[in-house]
């Protein structure tokens, strides 16, 4: 039926994005590099996009300043989605308490730079990353031996425990939170203050680029292949000699570290945090970002994170109805495009194809 065919193509419109990727892959190296450079430059100029005629109308966020939406929401969500994608998308571990690591990162910076010491942000940030990584290992060691769904509820509990602990302990600033958190140091014309959000955006975007670069290296390494194997079939991976526990723990720790990094950026930007910044619902939004974009695909995580963060701000016209609209949108996307907006591509191993029957579904169909 032609109509249903065309309707179907509408729902899978994002396929054109992956087609663009395929077309690019065929070009020479210099073309690819210059395309990438132009994209990165355009994204660095993102805070000025609302001034561009048509584009501006699409991206603008009525009622809130666009640069601060970028720094407080979009950058954070993209980073967090990248980190959670390692845990959920690559290793296939369902983590419902990711906000816990994010909070650990933010609170480490807050404690070290304001509450109990006066360290500069630049020193606090790596410590925060390490501390949240450690938190990931501590949580992961007992729980990663559990089956998937138990892991979900235990991590959910972890997120709650972190929030409630921060709320109850005076040492952590209890419910009033911690203020006067150090900002990143100013470099030349880039002044990190309360007035201008743009420097934070440049910092955040650079961080995202570095994280993407590192994750890509990791994904194509032995570790990445092990994660793939664990996600597809843990028992089979174990039989093939993959140390599943070790690699799951690695995924957890790396994911936690990125979460902590996002937290430290957030703390440095807003300079004031309290336990209400880290509700359980945020974990769920993070997970929604990853799955909406397409679990297991880094670009999907980036797009999903950006969309989940930006959409509620764009549609402020809906005022208090936007969360409702967001919930409905989640259901609809999952019903009609359950693999996410940009699905993970299943790499076809050439040598496997050569001896499999030519039905092409032996490794799982593409959808």
């Amino acid at each position, binding site marked *: *039926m032609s*109509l*249903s065919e065309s*309707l*179907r193509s509408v*729902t899978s419109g994002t396929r054109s994005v992956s087609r663009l990727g395929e077309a690019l892959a065929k070009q020479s190296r210099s073309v690819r590099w210059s395309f990438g450079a132009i994209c990165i430059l355009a994204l660095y100029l993102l805070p000025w996009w609302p001034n561009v005629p048509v584009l501006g109308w699409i991206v603008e966020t009525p009622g809130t300043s666009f640069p601060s939406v970028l720094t407080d929401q979009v950058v954070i969500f993209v980073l967090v989605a990248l980190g959670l994608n390692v845990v*959920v998308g690559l290793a296939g571990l*369902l983590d419902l308490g990711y906000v816990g690591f994010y909070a650990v990162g933010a609170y480490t910076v807050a404690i070290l730079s304001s509450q109990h010491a006066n360290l500069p942000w630049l020193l606090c940030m790596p410590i925060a990353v390490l501390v949240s990584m450690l938190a990931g290992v501590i949580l992961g060691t*007992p*729980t990663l*031996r*559990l*089956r998937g*769904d*138990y892991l*979900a*509820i*235990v991590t*959910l*509990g*972890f997120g*709650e*425990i972190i929030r*409630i*602990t921060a*709320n*109850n302990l005076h040492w952590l600033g209890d419910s009033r939170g911690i203020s006067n958190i150090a900002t990143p140091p100013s470099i030349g014309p880039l002044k990190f203050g309360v007035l201008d959000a743009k420097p934070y955006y440049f910092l955040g975007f650079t961080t995202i680029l570095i994280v993407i670069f590192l994750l890509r290296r990791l994904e194509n390494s032995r570790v990445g292949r092990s994660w793939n194997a664990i996600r597809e079939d843990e028992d089979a991976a174990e039989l093939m000699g993959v140390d599943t526990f070790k690699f799951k723990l690695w995924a957890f720790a790396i994911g936690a570290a990125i979460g902590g990094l996002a937290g430290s950026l957030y703390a440095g930007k807003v300079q004031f945090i309290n336990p209400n910044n880290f509700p*359980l619902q945020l974990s*769920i939004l993070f*997970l*929604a970002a990853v*799955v*909406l974009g397409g*679990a297991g695909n880094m670009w999907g995580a980036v797009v999903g994170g950006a969309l989940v963060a930006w959409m509620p701000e764009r549609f402020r016209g*809906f005022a*208090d*109805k936007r*969360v*409702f*609209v*967001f*919930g*409905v*949108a*989640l*259901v*609809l996307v*999952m*019903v*009609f495009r*359950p*693999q996410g907006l940009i699905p993970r591509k299943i790499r076809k191993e050439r040598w496997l194809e050569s001896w499999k029957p030519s039905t092409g579904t032996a490794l799982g169909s593409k*959808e």
Partner: protein
Amino acid sequence: MRDWLIYRTFWDLTVTGVALGSIYALVALGYTLVYGVLRLINFAHSEIFMIGTFASLITATNVLGLPMLEAGDYPYRTGFQLVLILLACLLGSMVLSGAGAVALERAAYRPLRGSGDQFGAVVLAFVTAFVVGLVFFDTPKSNLIFGIIGTGPIAWMYLNIFRRGRQAPRLAFLISAIGASTAITEAVAIWGPRDREQYQTPRVLEKKTLFQLFGTDIRIDYVIVIIGALLMMTALLLFVNRTRLGRGVRAVAQDVETAKILGVNVDFVILITFLLGGVMAGGAAMMFTLVYDQSKFNIGFLLGVKSFTAAVLGGIGNLKGALLGGIVLGLAENYGSALFGGEWKDVIAFVLLLVVLMFRPTGLLGESLAKARV
């Protein structure tokens, strides 16, 4: 440390803990049933519970016309009239929660299983049209009308693009559940008459002390909750173990493919599973309003998380485990808050779960809906 508190109020804590635990257990049954059959964490089950509390409120005030206060006091009723009111509320909660669970299954989960049908298409289409209407109209009434008009064509379109015969990945179910849960919560928060405020339910039952046990007053509402929960659970166990449909539920829980081959209508069984879970949550909701006299749009969230914890604690997929897990959790929370202070209540629940799972990785009673009662 306030350990003197726990000695003085030990039995008091026990009674309230068991009552709270019974409510957890009833909600946990919904999680455990659905998990046992579909291997899915039905995240939106907490909203089914929330709908139940509101159904109880609506039955009491709008249908039966009970006032909040009567001559400066609560509208207490006694005797036969009281029993009738309570039963009506229970029925209202169960019906609305059950219907909600069924609608949820058919709209948010069934299309993902690759067997989307008209009902799901219509529900999804209505919601879509309603959301589109939000762009153009400001009043709920014109939104509703727009939604109803738009339903037809959009439903027809949805029916055409349903991914029939294709199973979605497991994470997609979870996200769909989260979306549905968010949408239901927000819908109540936005269009409820009191917005995001807390609702009071009329207190028809005078909370008298029934008898004394170990020097503790046993209040009548706790007794009703505990006995009611036990009755409902027994009924559920009998249904699952003794009836033909129950056998179908167990068969699907054991092995979907084999059950299908042997002639079990899998979609219908899944529907029944959701219905049972919804009815149990409705019962729990009515008892919740009986004890706490209140409801709120986000009341389900934390309670749902706790109930799921209870289900895991007892061994997910295990009906008796849900009962045990609920009561253990309710007691642990009560004793724990007496020991460490109420602000640590939720931490205690999760730490308990962590400890139990470390030493018994499949929960207290082990999992499996199918093997629990062979």
